[in-house]
């Protein structure tokens, strides 16, 4: 995905009407790379199929 990250950023920005200026791209890309690395760390964890989200917990 990294090889195509600039294309991905362009497509997402256009799709979501985000005004991504060229001057901001390097910093946004650096942040995105960090976030995706951490996201993959979460993604790698084998969760049971029946685990549910816990947006709010009461106990």
């Amino acid at each position: 995905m990294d090889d195509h990250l600039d294309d991905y950023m362009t497509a997402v920005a256009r799709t979501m009407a985000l005004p991504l200026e060229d001057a901001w791209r390097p910093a946004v890309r650096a942040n995105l790379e960090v976030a995706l690395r951490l996201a993959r760390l979460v993604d790698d964890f084998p969760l049971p199929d029946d685990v549910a989200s816990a947006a709010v917990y009461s106990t």
Partner: protein
Amino acid sequence: MSETPAAMSAAEIAQAVSSRKITALAATEAALARIAVHDKILNAFTDVTADRARTRAKAVDAAIAAGQPAGPLAGVPFAVKNLFDVQGLSTRAGSKINRDLPPSPRDATLIERMEAAGAVLVGALNMGEYAYDFTGENAHDGPSRNPHDPTRMAGGSSGGSGSAVGGALVPIALGSDTNGSIRVPSSFCGTFGLKPTYGRLSRARSFPFVASLDHLGPFARNVKDLALAYDVMQGPDADDPACSVQSVEPTVPLLANDVSRLRVAIAGGYFQQNLLPEAVEAVARVAKALGATRTVELPEAARARAAAFIMTTTEGAALHLDRLRKRPNDFDPPVRDRLFAGAMIPAVYVDKAQKFRRWYRARVLELFQSVDVILAPATPCTAPKIGQATFTLDGVELPVRPNIGIHTQPISFIGLPVAAVPVPLEPMPIAVQIIAAPWREDIALRVAYALEQMGVVAAPAPRGL
């Protein structure tokens, strides 16, 4: 008891005002005078509500003179991070954009509860833009400065809260903590801070950041003041959908209860990595005082930090999406760049982060069947220099801002209550996290109080003023 209101604890002020040894107005004027002198250095306040404070203080004095019961915080000056709604002020949340909001029509719930207990709001406090920050720096208002060395960070995002209490401008301040924003400034500024259980204190009429992770809580210079503030702010609130319906559970009467039978363990693995020697020393001192020798491992803590990061950047981006489209040049550029990146994270990762949170929380709660308290560092180091971009942890040079909270994020991720307690090392203080099971703030505060009585933890006098 200290002789001047500016040097008195909140409990001492309330006792003196209740017994009419001093007036609430005198306590308020003392705080305003100290702010006028020292905030030129600290830059902790963005708004000083002097007229409102004097009016409120006179009302407290009048009520006491009329024989009405004084509240537990009678005449105690306090201030709030500027993401709390303050009637008549635009809730800027550290931003330029929010200054265009209309003045708030009503105070945040926690301000109302503090003032119902007799406290006197004296102002709003500097913070990192939209709370997406661990440094206390702010592109629009300038950095909050550390009261022990004004060339150093106050920590963030509740930097003004840490600076104001650490600098003894006010005895109590309120802040917010999404990933560590109470515990980090407490560590850097040498204050006590309480991040309660998620859902314990109402967030109504405060500007959000990450609804799944946002907490509000108090800062103070001693544990009794911290507990006093926490106690009066408890209680259900229909205006915050995440606020628990649990009844008020006062902690002040429990503070002096024996802690010798509590099972205390040290967080191992992840929490013993990426630390400078001062952080190791602080945890060791606290553990030794409590007789803690057992180590427990919070499973998958690094992944928990990663999941908290993903939820933060994506929920933050969702919150600010329209502002990113319409006013991208009015953000602090590094905040804007993080939020743009957050908007580009696929939703499936967010869902997996939320589900991982469920799994992780269940595993960590299992630990609390055999321990009552877990000790962990609050920050990897003492306060870095303002503007410092990198530091070296375990031989690796890392960016400062995102890594200051690496030891706080896996804890707030699952909403556990934490008392941050300052170890007064020289030349700079640093805090330790006292972590308890959900809804057991009483245990965290009891341990904090015991450590304070032993002289192991204390808010040092401001060294930089």
